[in-house]
């Protein structure tokens, strides 16, 4: 069902909701297209006229700075008009239903919705109710998926380590339980045939049946990052935690916080990633976050090119359908 919702009958992007349902050629096609847009964003004139005349709405039901800003910049660099709507302080507070909000925005002839919501499945719900010419991009839904973040991480790994994921050991460290980023990353890494995918976390922060995702689970940091080529840190999501999952942030840092000292266990050329925002002194030491092996800021830059690729690909299929 997901498959048919986000792809058209020729297997091209219609919406972009999650990594599941994509295939290897489409995923690499998106990454290649993003590579082209990365060239554009490095030019002195950073704008191309691809989506001129289109209107894109950033529909954010949940706070975000980095994701919203990079989506906005991506849309602007494609020459689209962008509207940012922060629903937490808008009509749903007055009792309007999600569908009514949607219908009202559609009446304004919107071409694309970029949706972030605290509930898993929100983007799917919206995608299944929009008019046929409207595309929906998932910018994070609950604990379910954050597919553009996963793509920009794959883009970053590919740039640093090359396109052969088969020889890579990738360790995802931290709060996997609450992380939509981790779920999308694991699906993307699997799709790219990554040699060894590991998750490293305290027992309380690993989802049940994690092995079914095709990953190796570790509860000891140094064992989990041994020989790793890439370490992806996750933010500790205090706001989503219910109950006593962790004794204290300090104890978490002692056991799972990445420091230069502990990094000795990883491969010599290990690359450090984090989707942000970083809790310094909780997930990692500042020395690691700001060190030469960190590509955390490159990830942010790549986010723009990847989002330009996804937006233009989803939108152009629609254009063709209309012509």
């Amino acid at each position, binding site marked *: 069902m997901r498959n048919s919702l986000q792809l058209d009958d020729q297997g091209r992007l219609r919406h972009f909701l999650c990594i599941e349902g994509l295939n290897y050629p489409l995923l690499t096609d998106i990454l*290649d297209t993003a*590579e082209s847009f990365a*060239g*554009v964003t490095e*030019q*002195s004139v950073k704008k191309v006229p*691809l989506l001129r005349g289109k209107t894109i709405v950033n529909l954010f039901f949940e706070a975000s700075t980095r994701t919203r800003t990079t989506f906005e910049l991506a849309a602007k660099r494609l020459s689209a008009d962008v509207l940012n709507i922060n629903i937490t302080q808008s009509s749903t507070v007055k009792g309007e239903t999600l569908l009514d909000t949607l219908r009202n925005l559609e009446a304004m002839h919107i071409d694309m919705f970029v949706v972030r919501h605290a509930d898993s499945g929100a983007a799917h719900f919206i995608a299944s109710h929009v008019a046929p010419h409207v595309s929906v991009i998932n910018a994070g839904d609950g604990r379910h998926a954050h597919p553009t973040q996963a793509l920009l991480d794959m883009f970053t790994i590919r740039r640093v380590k090359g396109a052969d994921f088969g020889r890579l050991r990738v360790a995802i460290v931290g709060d996997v339980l609450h992380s939509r980023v981790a779920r999308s990353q694991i699906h993307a890494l699997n799709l790219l045939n990554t040699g060894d995918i590991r998750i490293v976390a305290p027992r309380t922060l690993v989802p049940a049946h994690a092995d079914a995702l095709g990953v190796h689970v570790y509860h000891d940091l140094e064992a989990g990052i041994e020989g790793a080529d890439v370490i992806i840190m996750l933010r500790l999501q205090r706001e989503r935690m219910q109950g006593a999952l962790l004794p204290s942030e300090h104890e978490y840092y002692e056991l799972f916080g990445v420091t230069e000292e502990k990094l000795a266990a990883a491969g010599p050329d290990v690359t450090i990633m984090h989707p942000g925002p970083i809790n310094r002194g909780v997930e990692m030491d500042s020395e690691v976050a700001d060190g030469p092996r960190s590509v955390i800021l490159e990830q942010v830059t790549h986010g723009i090119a990847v989002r330009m690729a996804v937006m233009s690909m989803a939108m152009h299929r629609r254009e063709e359908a209309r012509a």
Partner: protein
Amino acid sequence: MSNIDNITGLLDSMADELRQLLKQAGCDNPAMVGIHTGGVWIAEQLHRKLGLSEPLGSLDISFYRDDFTRIGMNPVVRPSQLPFSIDDRHIILVDDVLHTGRTIRAAMNELFDYGRPASILLATLVERDGRELPIQANVVGVHVRLSSTQHIKLLGPQPLTLEINETS
């Protein structure tokens, strides 16, 4: 149409014509821009023959094409490189084949995003029929008459050859 086999000869006469045109128009210090991919190959040759001092610029106009939505995404789009200021500059725009004129329209749009050139001269190796826009080249290597089912394509970069194909 045997002269399409002598590309070196065509390039020599194009360079001569360009030299004269630039002299007549009093364009000193022009800058040359090739359109990816074939136009860059032709521009590299002309740039050397004319001994221009500015480095060669290149444009990939994929993101500017009006039929982009119909031909779909071309995943390999190289960044455009214009290593000089466009403002008040005499620009020699170079492409391999002038056909509908849409590529040239897109290239000029992209150039104007970078600045306001003093003038643009268009040089193409091949000029064929089938124009859909009011665009003409100032310097042409060879004029060919082809039916709408025939396509002419530049292969290269080493060696440069022109190939005519029939499509159904």
